[in-house]
């Protein structure tokens, strides 16, 4: 085994080619082929019937809303919509599949040949990358296996396995990109930007709740490396990439690993790999050197799908505003440029900022909190900003307290720290932690006197007119009051005390 090589070195020598396969669970009321509900989190095997259990004799009936959603996704991704296509059976044995075949689409996908433009921030400003869409097709989800015992949590070595078929038959849309080339060192960010943009489109279409943590949006990242000018290398397929952050990390980690393999004269094996959120690296899974033959053939239990052109055009007319157009509108309203906007998008906080503004927070403040403090906290704890336990209403309340002078910026950070740690609402945290700005003049004046006494030379300078030296005294007072004073107020009192003025 060769060691990975540092990222900068890897991308200096090799060119990455990436490709993404994204699975989106549609948010239809019922499953793809039966009337069972699709809600997440029900007790195992309570949302099942003869059809989604694949009992002998049962037959599928296509959910019309699943077709409609797939077509709308295809249209939003600038695809052509098939005039006639069929579902196909993908045959392989696995206990999470009730019928031991998956009803999917093979050589007749519903939507083909589209694209999606994504923007990534670079040192030279935002860069637009056009990601080609190979196909968008509809299929049924499988059940969910839980492996008990064994060290790996995988089927091999498990003592026994449990199957929950609630997920079996939930409509799933698979979106496959064409290979994305020429992104160089930006490949991981492009991958992330693509999945982010895709997620925003799904959300805008209202076809899925796209919660990566619940598996309603799942991403496989394909990566290969080649020397400049050479043929594309062998690709690996990284599964289990369950957050936007992981998309970027997984691609980066694969580039480092494959570069290490190639650099030491090794050969990249065609295989699936599993991404580990905790370590940020991938480990080998199933070899794809000898590709399994799925014996696809047209599903004889379902009639062909032939969406009428007028209907497709009607769906096209009903598409919501594209996220890029939506963002341009927001950027204008908030008075920010492309770069700032791209930063918000790639940090995965745009809709959080939007929600905060909607809750009454000033755009600048909302951006400052989400792109700064909250992104930092999320990164440190290895989670998505969206999963932090802070709401737009919390931000609005803290901003209100700042405006009234009850909190300053430093205290506000502490309030959010408490809110995120689950200590309660901003007001509860303020009360519990005693985080009020000290505005009692008497207490401040005595703190100022103490500071002046401790630094007589500085006091002398200020008296002599060097007003800028006041910062040292203000800092000492802030320190003495553990940040609970309003710095502006301290400065005002200090100058008054020494009988000098700012101007």
């Amino acid at each position, binding site marked *: 085994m060769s060691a990975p090589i540092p990222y900068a070195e890897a991308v200096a020598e090799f060119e990455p080619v990436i490709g993404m396969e994204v699975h989106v669970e549609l948010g239809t009321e019922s499953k793809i082929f039966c009337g069972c509900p699709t809600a997440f989190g029900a007790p195992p095997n309570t949302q099942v019937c003869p059809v989604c259990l694949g009992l*002998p004799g*049962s*037959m599928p009936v296509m959910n019309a809303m699943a077709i409609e959603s797939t077509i709308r996704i295809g249209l939003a991704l600038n695809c052509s919509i098939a005039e006639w296509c069929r579902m196909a*059976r993908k045959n392989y044995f696995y206990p999470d599949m009730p*019928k031991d075949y998956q009803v999917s689409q093979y050589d007749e996908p519903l939507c083909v040949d589209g694209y999606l433009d994504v923007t990534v921030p670079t040192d030279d400003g935002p860069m637009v990358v056009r990601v080609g869409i190979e196909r968008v097709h509809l299929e049924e989800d499988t059940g969910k296996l839980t492996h008990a015992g064994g060290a790996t949590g995988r089927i091999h070595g498990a003592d026994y396995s449990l199957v929950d078929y609630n997920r079996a038959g939930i409509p799933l849309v698979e979106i496959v990109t064409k290979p994305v080339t020429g992104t160089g060192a930006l490949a991981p960010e492009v991958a992330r930007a693509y999945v982010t943009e895709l997620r925003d489109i799904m959300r805008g279409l209202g076809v899925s709740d796209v919660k990566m943590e619940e598996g309603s949006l799942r991403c496989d990242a394909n990566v290969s490396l080649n020397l400049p000018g050479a043929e594309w290398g062998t690709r690996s397929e990284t599964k289990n990439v369950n957050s936007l952050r992981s998309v970027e990390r997984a691609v980066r980690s694969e580039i480092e690993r494959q570069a290490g393999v190639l650099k030491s004269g090794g050969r990249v094996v065609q295989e699936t790999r599993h991404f580990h959120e905790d370590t940020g690296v991938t480990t080998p899974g199933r070899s794809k050197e000898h590709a399994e*033959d799925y*014996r*696809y053939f047209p599903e004889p*239990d379902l*009639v062909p799908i032939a969406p009428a052109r007028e209907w497709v055009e009607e769906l096209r007319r009903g598409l919501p505003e594209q996220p890029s157009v939506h963002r341009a509108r927001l950027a204008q309203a908030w008075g920010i440029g492309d770069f700032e906007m791209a930063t918000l998008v790639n940090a995965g906080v745009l809709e959080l900022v939007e929600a905060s503004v909607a809750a009454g927070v000033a755009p600048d403040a909302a951006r400052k909190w989400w792109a700064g403090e909250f992104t930092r906290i999320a990164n440190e704890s290895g989670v998505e900003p969206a999963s932090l336990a802070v709401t737009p209403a919390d931000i609005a309340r803290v901003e209100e307290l700042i405006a009234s002078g009850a909190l300053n910026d430093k205290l506000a950070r502490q309030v959010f720290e408490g809110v995120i740690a689950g200590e309660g609402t901003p007001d509860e945290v303020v009360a519990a932690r005693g985080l009020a700005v000290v505005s009692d003049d008497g207490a401040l004046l005595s703190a100022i006197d103490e500071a002046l006494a401790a630094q007589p030379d500085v006091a002398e300078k200020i008296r002599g007119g060097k007003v800028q030296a006041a910062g040292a005294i203000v800092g000492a007072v802030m320190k003495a009051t553990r940040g609970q004073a309003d710095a502006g107020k301290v400065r005002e009192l200090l100058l008054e005390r020494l009988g000098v003025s700012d101007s």
Partner: protein
Amino acid sequence: MSTPLERDLIRQSAATLAEAIAEGEVSAREVTQAHLDRIAEVDGDVHAFLHVDAEGALATADAVDASRAAGDALGPLAGVPLALKDILAMKGVPTTCGSKILEGWRPPYDATVVERLRAAGIPILGKTNMDEFAMGSSTEHSAYGPTRNPWDLDRIPGGSGGGSAAAIASFEAPLAIGTDTGGSIRQPAAVTGTVGVKPTYGGVSRYGLVALASSLDQAGPCTRTVMDAALLHAVIGGHDPRDSTSIPDPMPDVVAAAARADVRGMRIGLVRELTGEGYQAGVEQRFREAVEILEHLGAEVVEVSCPHFEYALGAYYLILPSECSSNLARFDGMRYGLRVGDDGNASVEEVMSLTREAGFGPEVKRRIMLGTYALYSGYYDAYYGQAQKVRTLIQRDFEAAFAQCDVLVSPTAPTTAFRIGEKVDDPLAMYLNDVATIPVNMAGNCAMSLPVGLAPEDGLPVGLQVMAPPMADDRLYLVGGALEGALRDRWGHLLIEEVPSL
């Protein structure tokens, strides 16, 4: 020993029994009990049933009697008992498909056909024997032993629905449901001297019919008279939203057609490719005589050619195994039925493999392997793809023939019933039994087999097949009814009344 009255009850047509029940001349319970008694008396020899549900059948009969007593209107077959092929899911009642792999499975739901039978007040006597998963033409491939032909207990009753046909022919039931993928209703009807109809594909819901080959399977009626078949066809047919291949248009009025029973002015096509070499002399002879009768009744008979029918058998044995290899994948021991080798150490793959090895019989394994091979990506175009092209050509042959004729006719099966054991080790000889019935399944048409006499050389029943275009099922009944009537006039009785007593 049964009383004369009971003996009489079991020999009536379903239509007659329904009328007697509706008129209060006999109760549904009496009729049902008479058939249960008959089953108890003769099924040890015939072995038409895999499971008898006396309790359920009598409960339905009692409900019909109660409805009648309350003055409710009864459906046209209310109280007339029926034998159900063991390939249709019936809630709480064992459904094995003639296979060990499903031994002990009791479906938690009813097939649409079963729902409609229940709604019509038809007591279901039990589940009938069949070749395993409907693969065979003799019922010898049942994992539970063969069914015997009531005409000669040493001979096969046809297959795969030999149990349903034998139940009818031995007066264990006046009505039965069969399924027909390549002839499994019609060929048993032919060799047992009974009537069997394969409806238009999509005419009867497949929901709850355990699939052999989804694009070919169709459930239909097995009876002793053409009118009984029409009455049962009308009960089970019609659109079902749970089967997306079900035809939404209203089905033709088959009962009115059976009552009209008139071929005057019809053009009847004699398919040249479905006679001659390979057809037993006595079969040909009775078939020709029946065609003469049709001419005599006022039909115009012409010869037509369907040149691609000779490829039908070959194409069928690619499409059927391909679909069945996928349809039968789910029998893996994970969720229901047999599980073998789960000793706590074996992997899931090993348990699946051991279960399928132990649970499937040789014919099922043969077809699964054929289909698995035919679907491999490297062979797909050469096998499955080519077979689908042949299928299209067969459909075109039918279209061309039906442009000239209202119906087509042929012998149903090339021979009369053969001896048990005679062909069981020769798959190709077995497959040839369906040479005349397969084209209809490939095209999605409808067809009927009805008895036209006994072959002189062996004294066994011969069947004539009537074929009609999709959704023209009524034509089958016009022709079948007319021919049946003429033969009854000639013989003074139905052919089935010549069956030896058991």
